């Protein structure tokens, strides 16, 4: 199971690949995936800056969050090695995401629909332009 140290070398540096689990494909000793992912992260960063200055209306934040999520997925899969991890690790990593989705889903399911019955009229111009018009103003 474990790597056996060479009898002639006590130095740690002399027995490579101490990890028994699978590695990514490597080019020149280092996985090229790291550099590809890094380049993609930089491209996506400049894309998110670029779209912030474009008039996209309500789609601006949606696209910005989609780009952020793409970046996060790249980091999780490659920098954090989840792509090559066990199924159980996927479940653990996904559990945090699931509960976050519940948090956002239920919260916005509430707030975004409060104005539907117009029980509380909006009192200021800002409140009128907000989707949360059913909320108290102050």
């Amino acid at each position, binding site marked *: 199971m474990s790597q056996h140290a060479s009898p002639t070398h006590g130095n740690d540096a002399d027995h490579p690949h*101490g990890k028994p689990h699978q590695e990514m494909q490597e080019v020149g000793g280092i996985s090229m995936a790291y550099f590809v992912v890094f380049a993609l992260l930089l491209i996506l960063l400049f894309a998110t*800056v670029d779209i912030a200055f474009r008039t996209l209306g309500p789609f601006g934040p949606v696209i910005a969050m989609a780009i952020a999520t793409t970046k996060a997925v790249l*980091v999780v899969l490659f*920098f954090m090695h989840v792509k090559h991890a066990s199924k159980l690790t996927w479940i653990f990593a996904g559990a945090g995401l699931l509960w976050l989705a519940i948090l956002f889903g239920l919260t916005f399911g509430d707030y975004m629909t409060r104005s539907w019955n117009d029980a509380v009229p909006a009192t200021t111009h*800002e409140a009128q332009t*907000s989707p949360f018009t059913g909320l108290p103003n102050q």
Partner: protein
Amino acid sequence: MSSSSLSSTSAPKVPGDPGSADPGQAVHAHANPALAHHFDDLQQQHEAHTLGMWAFLATEIMFFGGLLVAFVVSTTMYPVAFDIAARQLDWQVGTMNTTVLLCSSLSMALAVHFARVANRKMTMLMLLLTVFLGTAFLGVKAYEYSTKWNHHLVPGASYNFEPWQHHPDEAETRLMTRAGVLTANGELNASALPAFQTRTQLFYGYYFTLTGLHAVHMIIGAGVILWLVFRVSKGQCLGDGSNFVEMTGLYWHFVDIVWIYLFPLLYLMDRSS
């Protein structure tokens, strides 16, 4: 550095390990100094370390998630006030800092790679590079905080946000008119000022809380990495024992992901004019 001096310092890698193995000899799996006695083999140990770290990161996701959901709700409630407050943040400095943080994630990933293949020098180099980039990020953050402090944008008694006094551009003027602070003919509307101050202050409350907690996470991460540099310099946490470097990497990348969301949410809300 001779191999004999290294092996003499790298003997017990795990506290509590019997330490009976001589690293100079071929070792059986159960006598491997990198393997804690309560695990069957290195693979099981690695799986346990990974799962434990992800369980911790799940709690961190919820920790930041609660703040983020509150911020997004407030943003949607007061879009105009939050928009004009967010425009005071320097998006160019923010973009540069995000680039620095992404670079630190790459160097951390490379540090984990070199620790796995037991390359002591490159592991140390990459860990120190990560700390350097993280410190640069925090330095820029401190500069941004001091700017906000000087502009009275820190929530509290001295908070005073008066963008109409600083030659607002066309977009800012339009936003202030929408917020009711300026009337249609450009006059200041005093009755709308208290609500405007409260709402923009709320934005800066979120800004300092979110970025401050992120910075605290980075300081903790940099401290752990410096401790790793010390361990690695003594030939520890390499090869079979590289799990410690890898788990620190998971934490560092997570903190990077938090910033990946904070940057567009805070700095780039809607810059179109």
